[in-house]
């Protein structure tokens, strides 16, 4: 080394350099975690992914959907889809009146043991259901956009944000992630369909397990227990479009003799269901243009309706009421519009026309 740079200075400088590197590396600020993409960027990416890959992934999705289909059943009690799941122990379905119903069944459930846990959004999901008319498995792929708080008749639950249109035939459909884990069920609350997140099933079942709520949601009836020497049940409210009205309950009246509690009233209404039959039973199908089954000789059959017809108007509930209590005489005859073999027919239904 040149004389101008004496060895001891070089050694000292090396010490300084090592110290600088050591201290500098130690003082380095910790790197912040990378920023998550913004919601608009995520949405753009999701749209892009959906558009580009849906075509290629169709086969893959179809295979997955068919393998998940073993968890699905068509439930006649609710006229909708139902899903078996190990932890449920029952068939979970969505009724028209109750968002979720757990129905006992004799069929052997397939028992995957996975827990119902909240999953993260931002992933593919498959909605799988049985098309009622054809009794065949249908599916659609969508994106799980996360969760949001929602409520149905005062019962709070978590809802899946999905980018798929929900149609009435999808009531009770199951939402799976691509690993086959049940993440939600399509449930009807009021007139709209939502995908209820799996961990909220229990909340909804419990919420509507309350007899008073169940009575109101399912039968449109609000009742109150009257304490006294002879306890009785007073009917406070009855919805004109509810099943309670069809069963003969009227606001301000007392419940039929012997019924003094809400659970008893519920039981009686449930038992009365087959009795209050006007010969009409809905086949599963869309709310509008609903396919009907007609018992021979029933008032509906006398009106000219046949099994397989699609009732366009009035609604099934209203028609049942008219068949039972006669349409109001004011306003002229009620037109019953139905569709048969693709052609619509209209029949006047005069007051007193049907017996």
């Amino acid at each position, binding site marked *: *080394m*040149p004389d*101008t*740079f004496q060895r001891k200075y*070089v050694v000292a*400088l*090396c010490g*300084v*350099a*090592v110290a*600088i*590197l050591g201290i*500098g*590396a130690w*003082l*380095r*600020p910790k790197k912040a975690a990378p920023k998550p993409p913004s919601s608009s960027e995520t949405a753009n990416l999701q749209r892009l992914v959906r558009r580009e890959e849906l075509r290629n992934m169709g086969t893959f999705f179809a295979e997955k959907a068919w393998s998940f289909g073993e968890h699905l059943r068509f439930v006649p009690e609710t006229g909708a889809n139902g899903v078996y799941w190990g932890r449920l122990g029952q068939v979970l379905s969505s009724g028209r009146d109750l968002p979720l119903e757990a129905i006992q069944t004799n069929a052997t459930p397939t028992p995957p043991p996975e827990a119902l846990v909240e999953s993260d959004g931002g992933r593919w999901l498959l909605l799988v259901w049985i098309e009622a008319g054809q009794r065949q498995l249908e599916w659609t792929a969508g994106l799980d956009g996360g969760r949001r708080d929602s409520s149905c008749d005062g019962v709070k639950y978590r809802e899946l944000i999905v980018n798929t249109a929900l149609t009435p035939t999808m009531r009770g459909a199951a939402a799976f992630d691509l690993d086959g884990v049940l993440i939600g069920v399509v449930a009807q609350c009021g007139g709209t369909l939502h995908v209820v997140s799996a961990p909220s099933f229990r909340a909804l079942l419990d919420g509507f397990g309350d007899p008073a709520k169940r009575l109101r949601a399912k039968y449109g009836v609000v009742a109150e227990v009257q304490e006294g020497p002879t306890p009785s049940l007073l009917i406070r409210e009855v919805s004109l479009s509810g099943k309670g009205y069809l069963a003969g309950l009227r606001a301000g009246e007392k419940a039929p003799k012997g019924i003094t509690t809400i659970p008893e009233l519920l039981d009686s209404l449930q038992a009365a269901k087959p009795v209050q039959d006007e010969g009409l039973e809905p086949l599963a199908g869309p709310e509008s243009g609903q396919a009907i089954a007609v018992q021979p000789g029933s008032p509906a059959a006398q009106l000219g309706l046949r099994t397989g017809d699609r009732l366009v108007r009035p609604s099934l509930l209203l028609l049942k009421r008219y068949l039972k209590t006669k349409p109001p005489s004011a306003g002229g005859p009620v037109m019953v519009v139905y569709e048969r073999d693709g052609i619509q027919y209209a029949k006047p239904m005069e007051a007193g026309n049907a017996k």
Partner: protein
Amino acid sequence: MNELASLGIILFFALLAGHLVKIVKVPEVTGYILAGVAVGPSFLGWITHENLASLEVFSEVALGLILFSIGSVFEFTAFRHMARRAVLITVFESLLAGSIVTAGMLAVGQRWDISLLLGAISMETAAATTLMVLRENNATGELTDTLKGLIAINNICCLIGFSLVAAVVDLSIRSSSPDAALGQALYESLYPLVWQMTGSVALGFLIGVLLSYWSSHIEEQGETLILMAGAVLLCVGFSDWLELSPLIASLAVGATMVNLTEHSRKLFNALSRTDPPLYAIFFVIAGADMNIAALPTLGLLGLVYVAGRAAGKLIGTRAGAKYAGASEVVQKFLGLTTLAQAGLAIGLVLVTNQRFPELGAKIATIVLAAVAIFELVGPLATKFALSRSGETRPQSTEPAVLLD
């Protein structure tokens, strides 16, 4: 195509282009770059973006070697005489180029932070390209010596300028966030500046000492080359790992070595015999990586950048050289030799993208398109200046001795 095949293509095309451009008296560097543009993704696509990514290591090593060579400019006894002049001219041209570009960007309505960052990046002059032209033309003389000093100091100057501007921009972003702690923001903003300067010099110094000590015990040229390659790889690798500047660290290795050992000339000679393939790869990759498709998008902002930088460099060098008392030749031609822009500017664009993602896209579009222009015009201008100043020498059959 796999990486080895693409490497072969790069070397053959470099050789071919090198011969072709000699016919039209264009610098070899330009030939290499044009060859890269031809085989790269912009045109033939024989070398893909994936190939380029996996060949990145060659670029880093080549740039390390080039900066290592430039570091020899800082030989204490020689640099003492030219330091004042080189520093003055560099400060003049860098600051003027940066100021004009910043002012121009503000004048056309750009945000202050984008304008300042573009100004800082515009200060850079491409070390590798300029050095290759000097080497190809076997240039010697006052202009050449001044240019070598200028390149070394310019790159340091640009890095300091950029780090300062980035710290200010960073600080403004952090202080505007509601949960900002001023002390922490200041620390995180200024740390990269201090760390990159001191840490890189310290690392380069340590590797330089190692190289100097070891080289005095080696006689065989093969071993010398192994030592050199090991030192450069160590320097670039550790710089990346510690987030230091490989550029300053490589400069520091060269500067340390040239001052600590009498064998430095032997080492640089050994290097100059073997490095041409690496440099060819470096420039062809640079050409292939060039985004020619971005040129039409240059627009008004690009024109402001190109014109502002060129004006700053040309006026700044002339004014600086006059002020420093340099000869008429230096005053007249130095500006033309400082036009090339590449390596560090591209590196700074990447840093901008990482640190300020919301500003990165616009800056990248402008700088990368401008680099395509300067990298093609720069070598031609440098060669023209060297020829006109009479500092070019015919190539001897012996390999050129680099930077002695």
